[in-house]
């Protein structure tokens, strides 16, 4: 057989194999209980209060601590490094497979509106691209990735470092019949570490005179997330947790960004609750980075937050 024909045949067999492999990955990822998109479908939490946002709520709000004091059930849907489009799709998928919660606590901060911080993690939605809404959001937020997804398996190959382990773990969960996530209430406790992020000091994270730049796509998906919740009769509360006081000096337009968030909140008729001025914000010992607490800070903040939820949200709605 001529070499040209053989090369062509390799590509045909490869195309078919990749289609099959794509199905195997789809299935494996949808069985992985440690992935929130899969977990909220396979084991619906169906709670009263949903906590949502990027890593700050993920690592700083413990449903177990809240539930004890508020008397209602809660689930932490937050995901590390996620932006509002990411949050929007997770909320959409949660609502698709769960009873709508009564309250949504959504983390918003000036960093959330600046695309320099956090991102849209397209890989999280790869097994769900057959859903037209997921498809459209991924296309809008990561066109570089989306344009190759028509090639078999490319939706996985593009970010394959994110998938191989998760697929294997998914099959392990499937064959062992596991129904619970490693973190069943969605909360991931902060790792034990001394003050410092990868860059060392917060001044490196916030260069002197860091000016936040609001991003229209972020604002658009913040509004869409609020509206999606309201369409499902959920009471939405935007909130900001304490920020290390020392860092504020490096952010000259933080107040301007806060007023921008307040304007959006007012337009959408949802409250924006700030915990920025708690006394703990001045104590570096509670933080691992400018926006994240350690376990000690977390307990203090969850206590304050629980009291706020009980008094201003639960009791008022009764």
């Amino acid at each position, binding site marked *: 057989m*001529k*070499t*040209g024909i*053989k*090369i062509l*045949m*390799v590509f045909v*067999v*490869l195309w078919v*194999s*990749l289609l099959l*492999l794509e199905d195997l990955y789809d299935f494996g990822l949808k069985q992985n209980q440690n992935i929130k998109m899969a977990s909220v479908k396979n084991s619906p939490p169906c709670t009263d209060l949903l906590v949502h946002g990027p890593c700050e709520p993920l690592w700083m709000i413990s449903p177990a601590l809240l539930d004890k004091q508020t008397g209602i059930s809660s689930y932490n849907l937050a995901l590390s490094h996620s932006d509002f489009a990411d949050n929007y799709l997770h909320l959409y998928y949660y609502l698709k497979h769960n009873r709508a919660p009564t309250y949504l606590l959504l983390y918003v901060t000036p960093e959330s509106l600046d695309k320099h911080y956090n991102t849209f993690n397209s890989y999280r939605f790869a097994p769900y691209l057959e859903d037209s809404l997921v498809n459209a959001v991924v296309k809008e937020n990561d066109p*570089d*990735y989306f344009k*190759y997804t028509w090639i078999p*398996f*490319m939706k996985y*190959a*593009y*970010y*394959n*470092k*994110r998938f*191989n*382990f*998760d697929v*294997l*773990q998914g099959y392990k969960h499937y064959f062992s019949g596991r129904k619970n996530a490693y973190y069943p209430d969605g909360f991931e406790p902060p790792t034990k570490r001394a003050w410092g992020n*990868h*860059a*060392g000091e917060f001044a490196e994270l916030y260069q002197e005179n860091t000016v936040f730049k609001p991003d229209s796509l972020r604002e658009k998906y913040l509004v869409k997330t609020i509206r999606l919740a309201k369409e499902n009769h959920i009471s939405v509360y935007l909130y900001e947790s304490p920020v290390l006081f020392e860092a504020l000096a490096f952010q000259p337009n933080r107040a301007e960004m806060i007023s921008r968030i307040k304007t959006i909140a007012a337009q959408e008729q949802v409250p924006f609750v700030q915990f920025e001025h708690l006394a703990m914000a001045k104590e570096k010992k509670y933080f691992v980075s400018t926006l994240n607490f350690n376990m000690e800070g977390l307990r203090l903040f969850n206590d304050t937050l629980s009291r706020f939820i009980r008094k201003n949200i639960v009791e008022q709605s009764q």
Partner: protein
Amino acid sequence: MAFCSPQFLIFFILVCGLNFVLKNPVRKYLLLFASLVFIGWFNLYTLGAVVFFSGFTFIIAARVTGDKNAFIFYFGLLVNCLAIVLFNYLLASDGLVIFSLNAVDFSVNALLLLVGLSFYNLQHVAYLVDVRRKRIPPEKNFLDFLLISAYFPKFISGPLTLYQQLRPQINWPAPQQINLGQGFNRMVLGFFKKMVLADRLAPSVASVFDYNDELPGITVMSAAILFTIQLYFDFSGYSDIAIGASKMLGIDLPENFDFPLRARSVTEFWRKWHRSLIHFFTTYIFYPVSFRYRRYKKHAAAIAVILTFFVSALWHGIGFTFMMWALCHMVYLLFELYVGNTSGASPGRLKRLVSAALILILVSFSNIFFRSTSSAACMHLLSRLFNFDFFPENWAVEVLAPIAVGGHQADLFNLVATFFFLCLTVLFERKIFEYASTSRFRPVITFLFILLIFVFGVFGNSQRFIYMQF
């Protein structure tokens, strides 16, 4: 147009198909047109510079042969050499042209303004010298000269190809089926090395080299060794793609690597590493200098080594780090020249293994200078390396986590997968190379390699080829 981009694959399939059916001289002009499109795709500055320097060198070469034309010859050399130095420092950042003394930017923020020109101008330097010494006649057809200079598979980072190596081949008839299979195998191997090995190692290396963390010496040394391996697979992967693509077009390019990780001395390492550049340096610097000072015997070779590595450092970049890198190799080679035992006796397997490991460590140490993003970063890494706490208290946090770029199970799984493929490739390197170079096309092996690229290769965050920066 980067080799690891879908645009290149589409472009190459089109060019390869047309090249297969066309006959010369049309085929030759197709390759010229394709080369200009390929270069112009990067940016028009590079294309403009290529046409300008080809025209300049073409005109100069026609006038350098006479005894009275030494000035023109040296002027031509000077302009091409200055261009190499200058182009290494022009970058584009935020839409602006910037001049940076730090020639290597391992971050992807600054884009290369002019791509491939340090290789390109070096070929012109060789061409001018050869014409001047009457080894070859000056080219009479400008379009042929332009094609030989700008031929796209070797344009970005070589293999550095001399005029006389390509000149006869551009008039050869269209390639045969056998070239397609052989070239295709080689390209697949190149993509595998780049996407599955080099690009998977890149984040591990970057997590140590790009941050000034207080890491123990063992982590720094491990990252330096990984960088040497990354550099090897990145550059040899690039060379495989270039050689394979060219083979499919019916033109043979010279080999660039000969299993350098198995070298048992630094001298042997340099016979096996980046051979086309070393061939250039030995032909045009080392041999002439050694010959000139031959009356000093061994010392002549020492002078030639020092000069060769000084020029090599300049070619890579003016900075302190490259000079230190070159100095390391000067010391290694001079030690071997004066003290080392280079007898041809064949050592046992264990001795070979120990020698290869030692050479890998020595070369990796020099690469700490090569890879460091600045002099300050380099000093920081060296201070960590020569610190008393070379071995850490907590291996998982201080060694494994930085190398795995995280401490999650998935990060460790990725690291294990990378090491698995790395070990297999290094162990069976010769066998794999034989498969990729054979004239027989083996569909099953090729299929498996492509499948591995899809499942384990880096697509979304792929790194540009390291030697594109020089």
